[in-house]
């Protein structure tokens, strides 16, 4: 009886450990491969016959325009976040406080964008971009990402604004603040942590997106997803360098996501954390 109880206590841990191990194994393999010489890649997980080669990271950084696209993605990401927050927050405020009939429209729009295949937007944008010269430009990419980031920035910001007590705003109004001043001087500082979370989720959308830069950029505005995909052209013996590139791309992402893991679930359902 006692043994049976002990087993039922241990089983969940055992099953979870096995699943966790299987989940971690590919990542562990990727990391170890990123430190190997090409000749060691198929010799077993922990075998480094020709030594550990940290150089792979430097090589990855300098190959396939990787470093350029790293900063490029940074710029596009920051630009996307700024537009989404600056344009989206006033709308979020309006939806939260002015009881206009926009909530249903917004949630409908959010769901629609979330539901529809990206190419439904990207095909027409491609034709428009080719005809207007926005193709393969950073500004073009920044604008296109608004399709994804603006709706959920508005949605998230709205939920943060709704959690601010209304009395504070009423008091400011009596003291003679204009509506815009209330938003800027009272609401914005109060929802600052939320704004950070919204910004990070938007940024990750840009950072991880493949289809948007694949269709709307070519070389000038190339992002990291495209450059690591291009590593494949270098043949199978460059696995360690490619693994290193994958790690370089992923590390910043994981750091910020752990930082805001409270919002992970809403990021997943909104499609910010790619699924």
């Amino acid at each position: 009886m006692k043994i049976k109880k002990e087993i039922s206590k241990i089983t969940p841990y055992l099953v979870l450990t096995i699943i966790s191990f299987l989940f971690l194994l590919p990542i562990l393999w990727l990391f170890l491969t990123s430190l190997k010489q090409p000749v060691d890649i198929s010799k077993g997980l922990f075998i480094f016959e020709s030594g550990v080669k940290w150089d792979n990271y430097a090589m990855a950084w300098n190959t396939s325009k990787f470093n350029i696209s790293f900063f490029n993605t940074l710029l596009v990401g920051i630009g996307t976040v700024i537009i989404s927050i600056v344009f989206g927050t006033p709308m979020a405020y309006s939806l939260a406080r002015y009881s206009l009939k926009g909530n249903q429209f917004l949630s409908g729009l959010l769901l629609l964008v979330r539901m529809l295949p990206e190419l439904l937007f990207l095909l027409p944008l491609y034709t428009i971009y080719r005809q207007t010269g926005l193709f393969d430009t950073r500004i073009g990419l920044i604008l296109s990402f608004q399709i994804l980031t603006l709706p959920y920035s508005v949605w998230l910001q709205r939920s943060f604004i709704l959690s601010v007590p209304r009395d504070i705003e009423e008091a400011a109004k009596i003291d003679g603040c204009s509506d815009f001043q209330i938003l800027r001087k009272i609401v914005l500082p109060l929802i600052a942590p939320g704004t950070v979370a919204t910004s990070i989720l938007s940024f990750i959308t840009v950072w991880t997106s493949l289809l948007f830069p694949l269709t709307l950029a070519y070389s000038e505005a190339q992002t990291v997803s495209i450059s690591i995909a291009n590593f494949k052209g270098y043949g199978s013996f460059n696995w360690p360098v490619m693994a290193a590139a994958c790690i370089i791309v992923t590390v910043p992402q994981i750091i910020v996501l752990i930082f805001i893991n409270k919002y992970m679930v809403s990021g997943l359902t909104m499609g910010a954390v790619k699924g």
Partner: protein
Amino acid sequence: MISKLKVKRSLVGYLFMLPALVIVCGLIIYPLFQNLINSFFEWNWIKSGMDTKTFIGFANYKRVFMDKLFWNSFWNTLVFSGIALGIEFTLGLVVALLLNQVGKGSLLFRIVIMFPLMISDIVAALTWKMLLDPSLGPINNFLSTVGLPTPNWLGNPKLVLPVLSIVDVWWQTGNIALVLLSGLQSMSIEPIEMAKIDGANRNQIFRFLTWPHLLPFVRTAVLFRIMDLMKVFALPWGITRGGPGRASEVSQLYIYKQGIGSYLDMGYAASLAVTFSIFVIVILTVVNSFFKGVEEA
């Protein structure tokens, strides 16, 4: 006086909305509209250049329904999504239940199971392309060491879709587990304690208490998962480019190739995108109707 104030107030409200509305109209609604228009035109950039655009009515849509390659891609999308969803949901539910049961150490397990989620689709694709490589990949290396057969995972047309589904299982099971776990954690303990006192066994507790409470979360997890599975692009593009032949060519990949990727048949690609989008909406509506009466989580 009051109504004047009210009008002024809602005017300010609309003014706050204006900047975002400009973007929504220009970048979301206008392209959708433009795509619909394009779908009624013969507009092949390779054949006749960017400037020749001829109205042909529903001819593109007729072509879509006769297009065996499109139906092949749609079938592939369904097979891929079906296998992936089935395994992800079962495994995700088990993981969520276990995580909820385990008190100590649950945070560590949670982080590990969340880990693949934090990796982008293209990195997941490239990693697994290497893992599954028939000659150098560690999976076949391991299998041959222990004396098991080493299938050509990505070269066999019958294996390739299930294999891609398994990659998605690795990548996204945590998604479903996290959503269901947040459902389990929002459950109060009292009813369960009372049921235990009344002599209910574990199966009864799950069936009559846990599962009904979990249903709204199941709905969220499943619907969003289906959305993303049907839209899959990066995994097949990154791992097989749709191959071998067209055995793993999913719909978004086929549409991409017809349009921007290689054939630049923009009018036809537009009608493919519209048709596929309608199919996605229909499937989501049908699945949603299974959850009739279940509130939103």
